[in-house]
């Protein structure tokens, strides 16, 4: 948005008190300042998420104070805490039930990798195995400042999205799926154990 040829003209006009914008710019401005998170927490990270939304850290400054109890009205899924394999299908289904455009913040060590419970038989080793995560926050648990930082990162990502063109985001492309396959309980593990379209296992290379 900042490197269009009209940028100089826009700056010149704003000096004279004339405000101009683009459809894309005002669309992204509206979207990034009204991201409503889904109200659900999975473990202790949720306590930090609650603290972020309260008066001391005040997520309302970023237009995100309206935690919605229904996925039908939510834009952002903050996966705050350990995702057990029993909970993973529900999390994916809730994500599927959210309307587009929708974003995911994986909050804390557990949500991004399984964290201290990674070796547990019942712990999903990162929600990015099933969902397209936009922002990962490390930490155990991350402080509210870290969640606010992740939120501002997401706002910058939204601001950089374009309405038209080949690099437009997933929710504007008709051929891209809106729903992600919900895993089911297999005999040993969740099946499928990951969604190959959103997650590829990292290559381990041992030398020497």
């Amino acid at each position: 948005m900042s490197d269009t040829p009209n940028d100089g003209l826009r700056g010149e006009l704003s000096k004279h008190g004339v405000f101009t914008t683009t459809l894309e710019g005002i669309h992204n401005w509206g979207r990034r300042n009204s991201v409503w998170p889904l109200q659900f927490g999975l473990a202790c990270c949720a306590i930090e998420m609650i603290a972020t939304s309260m008066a001391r850290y005040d997520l309302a400054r970023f237009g995100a104070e309206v935690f919605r109890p229904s996925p039908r009205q939510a834009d952002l899924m903050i996966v705050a805490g350990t995702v057990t394999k029993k909970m993973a299908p529900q999390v994916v289904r809730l994500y599927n039930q959210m309307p587009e455009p929708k974003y995911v913040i994986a909050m804390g060590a557990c949500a991004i990798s399984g964290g201290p419970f990674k070796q547990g038989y019942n712990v999903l080793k990162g929600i990015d195995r099933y969902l397209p995560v936009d922002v990962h926050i490390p930490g155990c648990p991350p402080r509210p400042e870290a969640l606010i930082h992740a939120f501002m990162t997401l706002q910058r990502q939204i601001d950089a999205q374009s309405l038209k063109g080949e690099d437009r985001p997933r929710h504007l492309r008709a051929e891209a799926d809106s729903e992600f396959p919900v895993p089911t309980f297999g005999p040993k593990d969740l099946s499928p154990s990951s969604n190959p379209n959103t997650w590829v296992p990292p290559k381990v290379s041992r030398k020497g």
Partner: protein
Amino acid sequence: MSESPYWFLALFALAAFGFAVMPLCLARLWAISFSPQKPGPDKNATYECGLQAKGDAWVQFKAEYYLYGIIFLVFDVEAIFLLPFAVAFSELPFAAFLAILLFVFLIVEGLAWAWAKGILNWR
């Protein structure tokens, strides 16, 4: 027609209609030109806190409370109306007596209904 003082009401009605319909049309236009609609089996499913819904949302609720509502009317509200009726009984004209009789009849009908439904039995 041009002298009618109410022509602006039609204008207001038109504006109100446009005020309601225009955002819907704009949203539809936005969906057509930019953001494709993506319904799916999960998104259209009944919301059940992330769990798979059993059955659909069109279940029939049993509104059995109405029987207790009738009993409440019979024994509580009727008493409130019967007390001033009894106090003013000797000075009442005949029409008022008929009216209150009709009222008592309606209430007693409710009592008979509740009795027939069997909710007066102690279980």
